[in-house]
C-alpha cells in the first residue's frame, strides 16, 4: 500500500526514468568523458599513464595552424555545400510541386542518392574523378575543355568534395520543402493570380515566404549534418592531398587513430561538439520564433 502511494506520488519521475538513464549513459557520459580526456596528456606513443594537465592541450591545439586551417575548411565546406543545396533543393521542389507526367518517377529517382552508402558513393566518385582514366575528365576533354585534377590537387579538392555532397544531399532539402509546399493552401496564390500577379511574383512574394519556416529548418538540419561530414571525405581523400581536405572530424580521427594523441584529439572533438551544439541551439530558438 505504502509502495503504491510512493509510486503514485512519484509517477512523473518514474515514467521518464528509463529515457533519462538512456540519455545519461549514451550521451552525457561520453561528453563528460571526452572533456576529461581533453584535460589529460594521454598519448599511446609515450607508453606512460595519462595524467591531468589542465587546459594546456587547448592552448596547444587551438593555436596549431593545421587545426585553424581545418576549422576554416570545415566552415567553407559546410556553408558552400549547404548554400548550393538550399538553392538547388528549393528550386527543384518548386518545379516538382507542379503536376506533370512522370512526377512520381522523378521523386523516386531523387531518393536514390539519399539512400546510397557514403563509402560506396566515395569509391564511385573516386573513379569518376580520376584525372587519367576517370569519366569526368573524359567528358570535359571530349567537349574540348581542359580536364581538372579534381580531388588530386589542393586547389580543387574541396570544391570536388562539395560537388559530391551536393549530389547526395540536395534531394533531402527538396523532399522536405516539397512536403512543406504540399501542406500550403492554394488560396493566397489564386487570389494573387486574380489580382494580376505573374508566376515569378507569386513564387517570390507568396509561396516562398509561406514555406520559409520549412526551408530554414531543412537548411539548419543539413548544416548540422554537413559540419560533421566524415565518411565521404575519409573514403575519397583521407584528408589529402597533404592536409588540403582535412576538416575537424578528419583531423580528430588522425590525431586519435594515427597519431594516438588522445588528449589533443579530444580537444578537437570538443570544439566540433561546441560548434554543432551552437547550431542545435540556434535551430530550437528559431523554431520557437517561427511558432510565435
Amino acid at each position: 500500500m505504502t509502495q503504491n502511494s510512493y509510486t503514485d506520488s512519484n509517477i512523473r519521475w518514474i515514467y521518464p526514468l528509463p529515457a533519462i538513464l538512456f540519455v545519461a549513459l549514451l550521451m552525457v557520459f561520453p561528453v563528460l568523458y571526452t572533456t576529461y580526456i581533453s584535460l589529460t596528456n594521454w598519448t599511446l606513443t609515450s607508453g606512460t599513464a595519462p595524467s591531468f594537465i589542465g587546459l594546456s592541450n587547448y592552448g596547444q591545439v587551438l593555436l596549431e595552424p593545421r587545426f585553424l586551417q581545418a576549422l576554416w575548411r570545415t566552415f567553407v565546406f559546410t556553408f558552400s555545400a549547404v548554400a548550393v543545396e538550399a538553392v538547388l533543393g528549393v528550386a527543384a521542389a518548386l518545379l516538382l510541386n507542379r503536376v506533370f507526367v512522370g512526377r512520381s518517377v522523378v521523386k523516386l529517382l531523387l531518393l536514390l542518392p539519399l539512400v546510397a552508402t557514403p563509402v560506396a558513393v566515395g569509391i564511385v566518385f573516386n573513379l569518376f574523378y580520376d584525372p587519367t582514366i576517370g569519366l569526368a575528365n573524359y567528358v570535359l576533354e571530349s567537349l574540348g575543355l581542359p580536364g581538372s585534377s579534381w580531388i588530386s590537387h589542393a586547389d580543387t579538392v574541396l570544391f570536388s568534395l562539395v560537388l559530391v555532397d551536393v549530389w547526395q544531399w540536395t534531394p533531402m532539402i527538396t523532399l522536405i520543402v516539397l512536403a512543406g509546399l504540399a501542406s500550403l493552401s492554394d488560396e493566397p496564390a489564386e487570389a494573387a493570380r486574380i489580382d494580376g500577379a505573374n508566376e515569378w511574383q507569386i513564387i517570390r512574394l507568396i509561396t516562398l515566404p509561406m514555406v520559409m519556416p520549412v526551408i530554414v529548418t531543412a537548411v539548419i538540419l543539413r548544416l548540422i549534418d554537413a559540419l560533421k561530414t566524415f565518411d565521404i571525405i575519409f573514403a575519397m581523400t583521407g584528408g589529402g592531398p597533404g592536409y588540403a581536405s582535412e576538416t575537424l572530424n578528419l583531423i580528430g580521427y588522425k590525431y586519435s587513430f594515427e597519431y594516438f594523441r588522445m588528449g589533443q584529439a579530444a580537444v578537437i572533438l570538443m570544439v566540433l561538439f561546441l560548434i554543432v551544439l551552437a547550431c542545435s541551439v540556434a535551430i530550437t530558438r528559431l523554431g520557437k520564433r517561427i511558432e510565435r
Partner: protein
Amino acid sequence: MKTTLKLGLAMAVTMGLSGAALAQTKEIRVLLANHPYGEVLKAAIPQFEQQSGIKVNVESLQESQLTTKLTTEFATNSSSVDVFMTRPLQDGKLFAKNKWYEPLGGYDFSDYPANTVSIVTYDGQPNIVPLVTEWQVLFYRKDLLEAAGLKVPTNFDELTAAAEKLNTGGLAGFASRGKGAAAVTQLSTFVYNFGGNYLDKGVAVFDSKEAVDGIRYYGKLVGSYGPRGVTSMSWENILPLFQAGRIAMWTDASVFYGQLTDPAKSSLGADKIGIANVPAGPKANSPFYVTSWGIAMASQSKKKDLAKTFLEWATSKELAAKAMEANITMARTSVWEDKAVTAKVDPGLVETRAFVAKNGNPSDRPFMSAVGEARDLIGEIIIESINTKGESPQIDQMAKDRAVKVNTLLRDTGEYGQ
C-alpha cells in the same frame, strides 16, 4: 537420503556445467589482415580446428583498420583478441612499448634472418613472428622499353633518361607513390641510394644533403613523368593505371607482382611485364627489404596455451611453403633454400629477392612509435618536391624544420638517441 540425492544432483549439474564451460573455452579469437597470407590462413583454419579441437573465430580487416581496432581494444583493456597479424615497422614500437605483445621466448627463431629478428625484438625478447617480407622493385613494360630501344635502367641516370623518353601524351614514363605519408616507404630506397637515411640511432637525419638530394630526385621523377594527380596516389591508384597500360615504369613493393601478372586481374598479359631491381643511386644500391607482416600473441589473452598452439601452426614451414606457391614472399629462410619450393615461385621474385637479401635495408620508414605522425611530416616535403619537380628552394628548410619536429616526437616518446 533425499538430501544426498539433491546434493548428488547439484554436483552432477555443476560438473556438467563446468564441463560445458571447459569445452567452450577451447576457442580463440584471431584478427587477420586483408592480405594474401591472411587468405591462406583462413582457407587452412578448418583443418587446424579438426586437428587441434580449438575453434578459431577469425576477423579480417584492412591494414589501417586492423591497427585502429587493436589499439582501441588494447588501450581500453577490453580486448578478447588472442592472436593477431601485425606490421612490425608500423605497429611494433607502439605495441611493444605499451606491452601489448606477449614476448615469445620459447619460439624457435633459427629459421629467420638475424636482422629480421632484431627488428621484432624488444627488451631482449622477440615479440612477433615474421611472416611476409617485401622489397622494392622496378616494374616495367617490356614491350614499351623494347619499342623505344631502351635497356632496363640500372642506375638513376638511365632511369631519368628512360622515363623522359617513354613519357608521351597518354603514357606516364614513371610512377611511384606521391600521396604524402604513403609515399614515405617508396621514397626510402631513393634516400638510401643517395646515401641518406630517415633516422640514425634515434635521431632524424633526413635533412642531410644526401637525403634531401634523394627527396629532390624523387620529386623530379614523379613530378615530371608521373601521372596527373600523383600527389593523391598510393599503390591502389597506381596499380589500376599500370594495368590499364597508362604507366611505363613503376617502383613499389614486390608484393604487387602477383596481381600485375595475374591474367584475371590485368589485361596487359604477363609477358609484357618485367620486374627488376630498383636502379642504383650515386652512393648506394640498397633497396628496402622489410618484414611487412608478422603475427603475435596478445599479452591480454587469457588463453595463451591455445594461442601458442595456433601461432606455431600459423607460422609453420608447411604453410609457408604453401603460401610461396601463391607468390607470397615468406620470411622463413628455409623456404627460399628449398629448390622444390622456389621452382614454383616466379623467377623474377627469386632473383630480386636474392639481391635484396644481400644488399637490402631492413627498414622503409622512420622506425619509431610515432611513425604515423612522422610519415605525415616527411610526406609534406615529398608533396612539395613533387609539385615543384624537385626544384623548390623551400625543400631544404622544410626538411630541417620537419626533422626538428620528428626529433621532438622522438623526445616525447623517450626514443631520442636510442
